[in-house]
């Protein structure tokens, strides 16, 4: 049973790795790489958010705030103060972890809609500060960000690289780097889910009082997963800032928080691969709908609404169930 389970988990990770490796076969211009890199970064962010929303059952309508703090911390420190990107990113993550812990303790005592309200308020406050402190953040006009570098090796979309005699552009390098980060993010998340922490989180989701009765320190675990998901967002925010080279306060906005939570719910709560699918769909949909021009917004709302009404569990779990059902029917027919 356990062996089976481990195999299944590894299988998912391997499938994801193969997809990441093979996707470039379908890419034929830098725009595709750019979009795929963005999707990978957002997918990694929502894999973290899913720990909080899908597994612990706590709603956050302000997660873009953490994403924004990570992005702006990296941008300001590397740009204005000349710090090196990688350590800066880690310092940003520590700052966000502290912030999330401080805010999380009192906030996570709240239930249901009050928790939504509080996280929404927190996200809004962060976005307003980023918007208004123009001397530091460039205000609504945004600011440019230095390229990423690992131990002195610069990673920029505009550079050319060569490895084993193969020449490739910076956009390709970024794509594989982001894909690698996504795999690491999934691997860590899957490990957390199968650890005692993950079990504690699921017990909180089931019934918080029951969990407390059997001795789970629910408020500790809730704060912990809040911090973990905030750190995911912060790290990916930093990465996104370096990748895109230019950031605006929109990254931290309420709309962006809604996009993140929609990725989780649309793809399938409590399913790591589901939320990745959610990120893919939500990032691709506007590209597809862009052809419809002024109809775009209406169609986006309609698709979102209809999907959630008819697949309340999300895309991935619904498709999974359908496949399983078909398999069962087939085996029944054979018997």
């Amino acid at each position, binding site marked *: 049973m356990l062996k089976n389970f481990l195999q299944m988990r590894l299988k998912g990770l391997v499938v994801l790795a193969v997809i990441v490796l093979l996707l470039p076969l379908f890419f034929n211009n830098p725009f595709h790489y750019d979009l795929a890199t963005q999707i990978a970064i957002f997918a990694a962010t929502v894999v973290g958010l899913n720990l909080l929303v899908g597994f612990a059952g706590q709603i956050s*309508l302000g997660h873009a705030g953490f994403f924004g703090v990570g992005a702006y911390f990296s941008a300001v420190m590397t740009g204005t103060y000349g710090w090196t990107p990688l350590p800066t990113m880690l310092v940003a993550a520590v700052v966000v972890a502290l912030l999330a812990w401080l805010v999380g303790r009192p906030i996570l005592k709240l239930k*249901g*809609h009050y928790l939504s*309200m509080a996280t929404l308020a927190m996200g*809004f406050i962060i976005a307003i500060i980023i918007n208004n402190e123009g001397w530091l953040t460039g205000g609504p006009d945004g600011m440019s960000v230095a390229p990423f570098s690992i131990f002195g090796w610069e990673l920029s979309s505009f550079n050319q690289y060569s490895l084993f005699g193969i020449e490739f552009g910076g956009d390709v390098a970024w794509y594989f780097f982001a894909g690698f980060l996504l795999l690491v993010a999934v691997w860590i998340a899957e490990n957390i889910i199968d650890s005692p922490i993950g079990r504690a989180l699921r017990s909180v989701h089931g*019934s918080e009082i029951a969990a407390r009765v059997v001795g789970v320190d629910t408020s500790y675990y809730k704060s912990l997963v809040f911090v973990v998901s905030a750190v995911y967002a912060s790290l990916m925010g930093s990465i996104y800032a370096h990748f895109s080279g230019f950031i605006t306060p929109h990254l931290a906005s309420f709309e962006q928080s809604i996009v993140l939570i929609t990725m989780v719910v649309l793809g399938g709560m409590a399913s790591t691969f589901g939320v990745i699918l959610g990120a893919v769909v939500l990032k691709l949909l506007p590209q597809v709908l862009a052809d419809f021009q*002024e109809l775009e*917004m*209406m169609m986006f709302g309609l698709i979102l609404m209809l999907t959630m009404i008819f697949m*309340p569990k999300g895309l991935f779990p619904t498709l999974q169930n359908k496949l399983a059902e078909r398999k069962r029917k087939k085996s029944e027919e054979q018997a």
Partner: protein
Amino acid sequence: MFAEFIQYLFTGITIGATYALIALGFTLIYNSSHVINFAQGEFLMIGGMATVSFVGMGLPMPVSIVLAVLLAGVIGICLQRFAIAPAKKADVVTLIIITIGASIFIRGVAQLVWGKQYHVMKNFSTDKPIHAFGAVLNSQSFWVVGIGAILVVALVLFFSRTMTGKAILATSMNKDAARLVGIRTQMVLMLAFMLSALLGSIAGIIVAPITFTSYDIGIMLGLKGFVAAALGGLGSGVGAIVGGLLLGIVEAMTAGYISSDYKDAVAFSMILLVLFFMPRGLFGSRVVERV
């Protein structure tokens, strides 16, 4: 000094009255179905925009207002019927996303019909400002506060004197028991959404001459209404009114005395602070969680 204070206070009460009406809409829907309707702000947008365009077609103002309110009511019923009712077994977050999807859809349609530009609505009565206590007041402010007060009184009478109102109250207290005594709870849910839409659209119409109106004003107004409702305590009518007025006044005071850039930040900090100490808002009822 005093004149300044009165000025800010009046601004605060005017916008606060609007927030209170939105919050009452939230409360109505929350009580009957436990859904937080993120499309609530769109009812305000529909009210204001539809009135402007009916007037533009040459209809007299009162007729335009009635038509706009009816339109919002129909959309409210459709929202319940076609978006909320089919998904009754969904999670809280899923319902939130559904109402957000609905609000994006409504906004998208509004953008198609009315365009992206700002629309201006004339004051109900004179355009001349009114001087009182040294402050300069927009005559429309009196309409906002007056109509807001009338609506609140009407709601109180509706819930305490009419059979339909009592049926809504009964359903919000215990759905199964309500069904047992013969209340058609599905009807009640539709009615609650319709009432909420009526309230929202009226709020949108009376405030439109002051704030102007455009297809995307619903997002922020809806959120402010949610803040007001949570501040007062979800599900409490008194809470919604107090929360709305308090929020409006605090915002106006912050904008006047501190910085208008940070008026929203102060409003959101206030809700955080209140929730830290009173996790169910100012007037929220204590609910025991069943295991």
